[in-house]
């Protein structure tokens, strides 16, 4: 039963190979060539809960852990500060500026995503123009505010996103203990999707309670199941692929509240074909973002 250093590294390598993640050269150069390597893009990440006083310092921490797990790129959004209730336009702008700073430091490893508070519609549209139309941001969300996403205030914002082929990541939860005030559910995003059939809507967390969330969004073809921010319970990704198809399932982590490991494990550990894992871990995100990236000359 005893293990020496070599056995430990071999076990880690064997386990990670079985999981399908990358092995770095230090541990096993030969092993790196012996398994399927995925291009992993993380659609859902934040700078909250990380060590460091600046966006750049916190981003360095994320890059360190991304490298350890072979994660190629993040889509980064708000959350440097703890959740701000009824965020003012100024607070929203500060959060977006922090994200822009972090991404500017690592342009090859992260894209920026827009934070808005739809309680302030006009300010949200102005922030969209500043950061997306005229800036480097390529996605909207995670939208997590005190207004459910089926509210009519979302409509002009979604229309603006559709006009630029920008997907929207919307926080949703179905909390067994009760949702927070204004917290969205998968039912709400389905309503929004019906009003905006051309929008590409990413159902953040798939409601957390994914057995319900997947069923709720199943018939809404422009809604994608995103797997971040819940415990790595077996069967999540298998059910999502079975009910929605792998093309509608997207990997995200919700770091720094979560680690990359527990979230990417949902895909790497799932009993699905490698082709499906490839889509979920990055292929679908790249397909959704390709139009806006191309339009911005970032593809």
């Amino acid at each position, binding site marked *: *039963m005893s293990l020496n250093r070599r056995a430990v590294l071999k076990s880690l390598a064997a386990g990670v190979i079985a999981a399908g993640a990358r092995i770095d050269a230090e541990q096993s150069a030969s092993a790196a060539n012996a398994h399927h390597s995925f291009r992993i893009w993380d659609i859902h990440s934040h700078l909250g809960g990380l060590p460091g006083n600046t966006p750049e310092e916190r981003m360095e921490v994320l890059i360190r852990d991304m490298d350890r797990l072979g994660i190629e790129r993040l889509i980064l959004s708000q959350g440097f500060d703890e959740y701000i209730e009824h965020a003012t336009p100024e607070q929203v702008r500060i959060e977006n500026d922090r994200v822009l700073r972090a991404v500017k430091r690592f342009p090859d490893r992260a894209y920026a995503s827009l934070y808005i508070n739809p309680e302030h519609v006009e300010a949200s549209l102005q922030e969209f123009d500043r950061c997306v139309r005229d800036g480097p941001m390529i996605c909207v969300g995670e939208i997590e505010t005190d207004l459910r996403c089926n509210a009519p205030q979302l409509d002009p914002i979604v229309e603006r996103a559709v006009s630029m082929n920008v997907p929207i990541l919307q926080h949703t939860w179905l909390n067994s203990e009760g949702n927070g005030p204004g917290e969205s559910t998968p039912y709400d995003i389905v309503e929004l999707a019906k009003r905006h059939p051309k929008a590409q809507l990413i159902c953040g967390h798939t409601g957390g309670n994914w057995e319900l969330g997947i069923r709720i969004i199943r018939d809404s073809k422009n809604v994608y199941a995103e797997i971040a921010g819940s415990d790595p319970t077996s069967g999540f990704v298998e059910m999502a692929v079975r009910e929605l198809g792998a093309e509608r399932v997207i990997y995200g982590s919700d770091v720094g509240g979560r680690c990359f490991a527990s979230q990417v494990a949902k895909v790497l550990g799932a009993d699905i074909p490698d082709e499906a894992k490839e889509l979920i871990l990055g292929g679908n995100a790249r397909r959704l973002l390709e139009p806006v990236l191309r339009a911005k000359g970032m593809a």
Partner: protein
Amino acid sequence: MIDTNVNLFRWPYRRVVGDDPETLATRLRARGVTQAWACSYEALLCHDMAGVNLRLAKACSQVGAGFFLPFGCVNPKLPAWQEDLRRCHEVHRMAGIRLFPNCHGYTLAEPESLELISEASRRNLIVQIALSMEDARTQQNVIQPADPSPLADLLARNPRMQIMFLNYGAWTDDDASEAIARIRKAENAYFEIAMNEGVGGLARLMAATSPSRVVFGSHAPFFYFESALLKVREAGLPADQAMALLSGNAQSLLRSR
């Protein structure tokens, strides 16, 4: 690699891959696990705990040639739980027991809980306490995690007592109570990682407790096994700490009995 936190048979609310012992053993071995400490999901809802533990012991003896180390369940709220404990120790020769306080509806402050843990320790059994099984926010029936705080004094008074806490993600909370702080530093308290979360979470847990008392556990098959394994990789630990986490600390605990 020793996985200190697996369960055999079916999760009550969902079929999962690996909910038969043969498949679970095959999958864990393929991922580098050499020994798995196993209890039974049947224990969560059954009252006939003697039957649960009998089936667990039988499965562990029949599947995997010693791969599974059985940890029977004892529920101190059941009548005559003392006989369940005796059989775990004397009949099945188990190395330890596993408690599910939140699922079984008792706190760790209740006299029966303390009596059970003390009696198990007197028998030199490792006591694993699964403080939760699932995020309360996603449960069909909401059950809050058990609070480990009442065990701070017990651990301090009984240095030979060996308690391993499973499935708890709040050890490193900034607002942890004084009792939690004492448990973290207790030399006879061990901490399993299945629900440890956050960027740098494993390093924080080791700093808050001790690298010699953090043990590998996956909570498989309810959790994807890869989650725990990749956490070790994400942590970027020195090889000696990785070795201790993956097997050394659990081995030491077993040897100390």
